[in-house]
């Protein structure tokens, strides 16, 4: 299974782990955008989740509580965004950007004194004999539980949006808040719920960075993952399976290019380094060509709703 000096099995296993943070954050943001709200504060919510999750996990010694703490912190940040955009009817783009700046600053403050501590380890899920299957074992059955949770969430969100009444209502709110309002649905309440969910997902993704990916706290640890998550939502044309593909593609190529360098590949480093971005753009162009309506963006995305009558 070696290609160009790279073991494909370990590469795929690494890729699945490496893409968890952006996958979680992008899934959450997709639900938010499906409800018609654009929250550009993903990076801020992620990093707050990263610092809070880290602090909680170190204090309690329990990584599961850490992830819950990260989710709570992300949701709290999202609550602030919901207050600004749904209650005070502030501009969503400006509020989202402010949320990111606020999150970066506050996380740096909260993280003072937490540098250089090692968090409790998040162990792999013991899947017994499954992990010993050649090839498939290391790729699929030897990860921590967050990896499986993120994959389950892909399926759950797909099913929720596609096959449940609540999912239909959420989509209706995103497509036309006026119509949904006229039918008696609580537009602001539904959107607030989606925003909180998105925040919790981003927070958990952030906590995964500080508890598993890097296992430590340093300022600015997410370094742009939230922005990539935002891009992946558009890339995926608001479809859960494509979010998964996007996260794997981006995460995979980022990991692959480092592996190719380490393996002493003959491809010039410049091309390797830019490849994640180039391929993302290429796929985006391919997906969006020849389709009808603006690639599935919710019609009322980013519009402020005010029930005037």
């Amino acid at each position: 299974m070696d290609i160009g000096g790279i073991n494909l099995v370990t590469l795929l296993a690494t890729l699945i782990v490496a893409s968890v943070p952006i996958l979680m954050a992008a899934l959450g943001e997709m639900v938010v955008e499906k409800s018609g709200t654009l929250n550009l504060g993903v990076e801020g919510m992620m990093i707050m989740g990263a610092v809070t999750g880290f602090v909680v996990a170190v204090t309690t010694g329990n990584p599961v509580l850490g992830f819950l703490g990260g989710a709570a912190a992300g949701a709290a940040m999202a609550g602030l965004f919901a207050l600004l955009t749904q209650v005070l009817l502030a501009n969503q783009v400006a509020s989202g950007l402010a949320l990111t700046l606020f999150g970066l600053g506050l996380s740096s403050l909260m993280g003072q004194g937490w540098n250089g501590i090692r968090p409790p380890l998040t162990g792999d899920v013991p899947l017994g004999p499954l992990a010993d299957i050649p090839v498939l074992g290391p790729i699929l059955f030897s990860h921590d539980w967050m990896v499986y949770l993120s994959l389950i969430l892909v399926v759950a969100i797909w099913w929720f949006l596609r096959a449940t009444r609540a999912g239909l209502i959420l989509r209706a709110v995103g497509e036309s808040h006026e119509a949904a309002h006229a039918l008696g649905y609580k537009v602001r309440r539904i959107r607030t719920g989606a925003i909180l969910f998105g925040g919790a997902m981003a927070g958990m993704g952030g906590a995964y960075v500080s508890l598993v990916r890097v296992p430590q706290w340093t300022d600015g640890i997410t370094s742009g993952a939230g922005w990539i998550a935002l891009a992946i939502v558009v890339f995926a044309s608001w479809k859960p399976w494509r979010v998964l593909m996007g996260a794997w593609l981006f995460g995979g190529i980022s990991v692959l290019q480092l592996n190719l360098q380490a393996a002493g590949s003959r491809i010039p480093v410049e091309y390797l380094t830019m490849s994640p971005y180039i391929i993302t753009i290429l796929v985006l162009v391919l997906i969006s060509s020849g389709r009808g309506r603006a690639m599935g963006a919710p019609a009322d995305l980013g519009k402020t709703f005010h029930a005037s009558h």
Partner: protein
Amino acid sequence: MKRRLLLATAAALMALPAASFAQGMDKVKACFIYVGPVGDGGWTYQHDLGRQALAAEYGDRVDATTYQESVPEGADSERVMTQMALSGCNIIFATSFGYMDAVNNVAAKFPNVKFEHATGYRRDHANVSTYDARFYEGRAVTGTMAGLMTKSDKIGYIGSFPIPENIQGINAAYLAAKKVNPDATMSVVWAYTWFDPAKEADAARALIEQGVDVILQHTDSTAPLAEAAKTPGVVGFGQASDMAEFKPSPRVASIIDNWAPYYIERVGALLDGTYEQGATWAGIAGGEVEIGEITDAVPAEVKTKAQEVRDAIAAGTLHPFTGPLKKQDGSDWLAEGETPDDAELAGMNFYVEGITGEIPN
């Protein structure tokens, strides 16, 4: 109105020090611009320790409270430094290589403000000085340890950007490792960032998957050490700062940048009127490069050998680049016993013989 006030203040501030430089200054405002967060535990952290030491040294005579973290290299840094110069800073320490153009542009506009650029080489104007540390001397020590400690004979190096400072480090570490372990090979991964913990961890992981068991890093965060800690038997070194929290393993030693003496000296010179433009490049002997505690995870004979190399470099009896050496393409570089001069070192843009891979342009 506001702008006029600002300009008037700036003009007044610029006029003031001009008159008083020759006979020194009563009070100096020293400002710092950082490429990463102070909490990175590495590069920026060490510069900030230098800033704090400066404040402690001169007390009321120096205002060293102004600094800005995480300033991207490029246009943003130019804005930040202009703002600092306008707000009355007498001396500005720009602590990243990539601030080079910005430093020289801003220096042209504020001839009475002193600019100090870390790791740079361009001094376009009389008020720009550069300072650097001979990190490659430290690399020779850690490279020696890497060569002796690797079991797979594979050493990994996480480079930040393909600039001379990185290439000096790679070459010095490789030559030192090769000297004690002829079978040692070196894999280089360019992260194209100074600070991105997730990416640095990924780079470390990629190296470990290739069988590397000793990792040297040129990036600023502790993430590669945290990644190394996940795999038993893999060791690494603290970079820029001691990174003591990863003792005794995977962090088995470290290269510490100690900027405090330089900051104290330069601001002191500004205070007593002896300040001159300069280009400082001190190493282990000058105390700017320190080797952090070598932990007990290192076999005693390896520790002794590393200390010998360190002491020989400090005493001037050993130069990390001593001929005969060839370049990667097989052409001659240094003759028997020859050492390169500083200009050649500062512009190093080739690997030495034995390193595989190409340096990106």
